């Protein structure tokens, strides 16, 4: 097939000028885009208001998609459960028996804990969630890992607040619009979470690898004490994330750390909860220092003594 010859203007001066102007606008667009790109790399929050307005426009579509996702997963889970019913029943019966024994132990421990705390005069601050919302969109085609939340500043969501699902940490809010907010997922390389091993409090920090997995880096170098299956929870250092939220499970042990998968896959989370920033003052100071010093992975993890 020969290419169409409709780009040839002939002798019409007007058509020739039209084509020339097209090229000028195209090259000017390229240059303007490069300028905007430099601005947005130097100052990532530069176009947040435009992005917020765009997310507001697309919100109905996203909410419909989120509901479809929940329904679709229900159907698939129901079909899967049908095939594994017998096997699953036996396994679950065993698990329930074990869990019942554990629950009794837990109740005893909890009452003892309460009694001891009352003796010491410790008052637990009650963390009241700010909003419950759905994840209505994500940047599925880009190497950056953002998600869009269906709650915004009208619901009290502010930048810097952590987002979690029932199973674990999802990420933190970085931009808010009136009815939507942009969440930096834990799997984004820019997101660094200070954590400790749930079993013994071994300090580490977690960095996204952008491919769905996360890198676990230890604070104390030397012998690597990680084992596959170790669970890491947030440690509360840095003041951003409240302590005790599950983040990752180790799947692969490397010589200086490990690679893990998320405790809570954002695709499985039907509803997520926005929590208040653990220590807002510390979070603000952290944000300011990060903005001043550029992206330094140790700023929120290793630098302030976990």
């Amino acid at each position, binding site marked *: 097939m020969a290419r169409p010859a409709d780009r040839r203007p002939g002798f019409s001066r007007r058509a020739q000028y039209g084509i020339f102007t097209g*090229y000028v606008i195209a090259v000017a667009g390229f240059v*303007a885009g490069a300028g905007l*790109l430099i601005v947005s790399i130097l100052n990532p929050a530069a176009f947040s208001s435009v992005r917020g307005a765009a997310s507001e426009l*697309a919100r109905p579509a996203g909410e419909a998609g989120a509901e479809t996702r929940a329904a679709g997963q229900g159907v698939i889970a129901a079909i899967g459960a049908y095939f594994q019913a017998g096997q699953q029943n036996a396994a679950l019966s065993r698990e329930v028996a074990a869990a019942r024994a554990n629950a009794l132990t837990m109740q005893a421990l909890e009452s003892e804990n309460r009694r001891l705390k009352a003796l010491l005069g410790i008052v637990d601050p009650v963390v009241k969630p700010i909003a419950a919302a759905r994840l209505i969109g994500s940047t*599925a085609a880009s190497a950056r*890992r953002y998600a869009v939340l269906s709650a915004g500043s009208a619901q009290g969501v502010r930048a810097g607040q952590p987002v979690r699902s029932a199973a674990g940490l999802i990420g933190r809010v970085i931009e808010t619009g009136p009815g939507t907010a942009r969440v930096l997922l834990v799997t984004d390389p820019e997101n660094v979470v200070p954590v400790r091993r749930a079993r013994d409090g071994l300090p580490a920090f977690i960095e996204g690898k*952008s491919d769905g997995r996360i890198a676990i880096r230890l604070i104390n170098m030397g012998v690597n004490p990680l084992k596959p299956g170790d669970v890491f929870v947030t440690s509360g250092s840095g003041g951003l994330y409240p302590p005790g939220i599950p983040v990752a499970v180790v799947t692969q042990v490397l010589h200086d750390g490990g690679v893990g998968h998320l405790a809570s896959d954002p695709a499985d989370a039907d509803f997520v909860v926005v929590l208040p920033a653990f220590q807002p003052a510390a979070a603000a100071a952290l944000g300011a220092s990060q903005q001043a010093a550029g992206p330094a992975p140790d700023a929120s993890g290793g630098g302030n003594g976990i």
Partner: protein
Amino acid sequence: MPLTRFPDLPHIPVRPEDIVPQRINRAPSPWLASGLPWISIMLASLAAFSPVIASAPVVPPLAFMVFLAWRMLRPSLLPIWAGLPLGAFDDLYSGQPFGSGIVLWSAAMLVMDSIDNRLLWRSFVQDWAVAGLLMTAYLVLAAALAGLAAGYPLPMVIGPQLLVTLALYPLVTRLMALLDRIRLLPLSTV
């Protein structure tokens, strides 16, 4: 071997042309004829608001693929500066640093123009190869820009996405060819 025909099967009106019975005194609606490419590309940009919350970049860059498919199917339909507004719209939803879409889409339009001037003939395989080169360059550069914005070296995570993108491109061109027939339906009275 030629495909066998089944003459006793009932006629299924699958062609878009069959929707409009009357053709005399009719012309394509100007709004649809010039607006459908723009709308389809913008809808593909909105595919970020998909039911899947991805933990890794797995979804192909649908908007850029649709954009390339229109450019290959109808070289003069999108003006050469179309990368400026469409790339800016894509940047709002793609999660890339704002401006990367404008730069890459404008560059793709200029490169396509220069390729059209050099290759005088078109074929399916050649179109696929050219689109493959452009999409590979787009994905690698977009990941590099995202890595620059995150202050993190380019993660080698776009491999699976690249393969899916290359394999899906002919399908996208078929879909755009179908949309092109819908675009030219004689809907308005002359």
